[in-house]
């Protein structure tokens, strides 16, 4: 099963894939105990422009893997390449959305969105215009001068999305960004993400533990096993974009959900 999965994951004679992960392994030292192996062995490729979700049970190492890809923690072993270059430190042309919105309460919404540009030294009129455009795109027009405390959780998460997109990242890394939202807002945000992806062409790696979310938004669903994580299944979702809520009721959709459920070991 494993080898077949890897074949599916990698386009055979193609040029360098956008993202290339081979034998990624991660363990954490624990004082007085054997090291905890979070990720056993993860190997797959990501095509440029694809939206890949990492689906897996809680505590299996999804966040850890995403942070490794983001260059925030060094992997214990394996190869991590983006655009043909090894990732050993954070890359400014990545955008990261964390599980919490992580907005700065002392900055206005507009200033929060512009934070990456300030760090990268690229604040100018064009950046401010782009911040306003992004906020309008996520339906937050008129909130530029508000403070985060005045926004709801869903609105804050949309601001975090704008902030991750402000510097036009080639790779967008998202860790359960909609996990804390109610079902309705969550579905709205999924459509918004697909909309933004279509407009920007960014490659997206998206962590979730919702099966239907992963099937709905993905080109590829990469199912992680329980800890220590290996790839349990690598599912290509051949449903055309743009997608809308109706496809959730298609038999193909349900079949893909079943397959993901089987890989997770919750359905047979």
């Amino acid at each position, binding site marked *: 099963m494993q080898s077949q999965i890897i074949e599916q994951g990698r386009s055979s004679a193609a040029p360098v894939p956008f993202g290339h992960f081979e034998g990624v392994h991660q363990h954490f030292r624990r004082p007085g105990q054997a090291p905890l192996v979070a990720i056993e062995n993860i190997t797959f490729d990501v095509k440029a422009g694809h939206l890949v979700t990492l689906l897996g049970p809680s505590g299996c190492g999804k966040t850890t893997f995403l942070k490794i890809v983001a260059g925030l923690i060094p992997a214990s072993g394996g190869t991590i390449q983006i655009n043909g270059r090894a990732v050993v430190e954070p890359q400014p042309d990545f955008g990261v959305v964390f599980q919490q919105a992580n907005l*700065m309460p002392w900055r206005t919404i507009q200033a929060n969105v512009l934070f990456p540009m300030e760090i990268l030294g690229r604040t100018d009129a064009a950046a401010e215009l782009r911040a306003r455009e992004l906020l309008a795109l996520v339906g937050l027009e008129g909130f530029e001068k508000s403070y985060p405390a005045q926004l709801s959780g869903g609105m804050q998460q949309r601001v975090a999305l704008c902030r991750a997109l402000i510097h036009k990242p080639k790779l967008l890394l998202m860790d359960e960004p909609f996990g804390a939202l109610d079902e309705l807002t969550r579905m709205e945000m999924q459509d918004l993400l697909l909309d933004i992806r279509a407009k920007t062409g960014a490659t997206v790696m998206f962590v979730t533990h919702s099966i239907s979310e992963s099937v709905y938004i993905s080109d590829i669903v990469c199912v992680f096993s329980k800890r220590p994580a290996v790839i349990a299944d690598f599912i290509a979702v051949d449903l055309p974009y743009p997608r809308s809520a109706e496809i959730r009721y298609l038999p193909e959709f349900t079949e893909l959900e079943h397959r993901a459920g089987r890989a997770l070991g919750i359905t047979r």
Partner: protein
Amino acid sequence: MRLHHVRNAFYPVAGIAIILVAWQFYTQFFAINRIVLPSPADIFWASAANWNVLLRESWPTFVESVLGFALAVAIGIPFAVCVANSRVLNLTLYPILIATQSIPKVAVAPIILVWFGLGMQSKLVIAFLVAFFPIVVDTAAGMRATPAGLLELARSLRASPLQIFLKVQFPAALPFIFAGAKVAVTLAVIGAVIGEFIGSMNGLGNLLLTANSQLDSPLAWAALVWLSALGVLLFGAVVLAERIVMPWSETGHH
């Protein structure tokens, strides 16, 4: 002035009014000697009759407190930033700071007076010493309490240590710094008065002591009232500064 402001002001004002009425009643009904306990009315009239003296003597106390506090802020915040961000400095200086803090300032005051004389300088130094500790402790706590998510965000953009400090750590510590400043500013007034008690030529503390030795209790109590008014005024100034520097913290409440 919105309605809830009026409502919030009502309770303390009503509380003080009740205490004053009870106090007035008590001193009059039991014919308490005004040297032992002057009535609120006595204090009021002493204050009104001596307003120019009280005002004149307030000035040095005000200057000593404010400069001592300002010095504590100016030195305490950078000190705390260094201590919080350097392991070596933290291990070296923090124990020394704690040890010196546990020395009662009243005990040090006479020595300070020997060093800096009977003028305003010595009071300023004592005010500085008492205000320094809360500023340092709260600022250092704030420096260490930066939300991990924000640090991770900054790291994901490869922000420099200076950028992280200026754009994340320091603004995130502001609520802590102001909490420390509010404690420090009232302590600074106390420090100045301690200095004036031990040896001085002027100031509200000096006036209080003089009036007391002349058994002019109404005036001594008037000096006490002016002292607490001075403390409230300075505290209010810090709260105002907080509102100006951190406008976002207010927007969350309403």
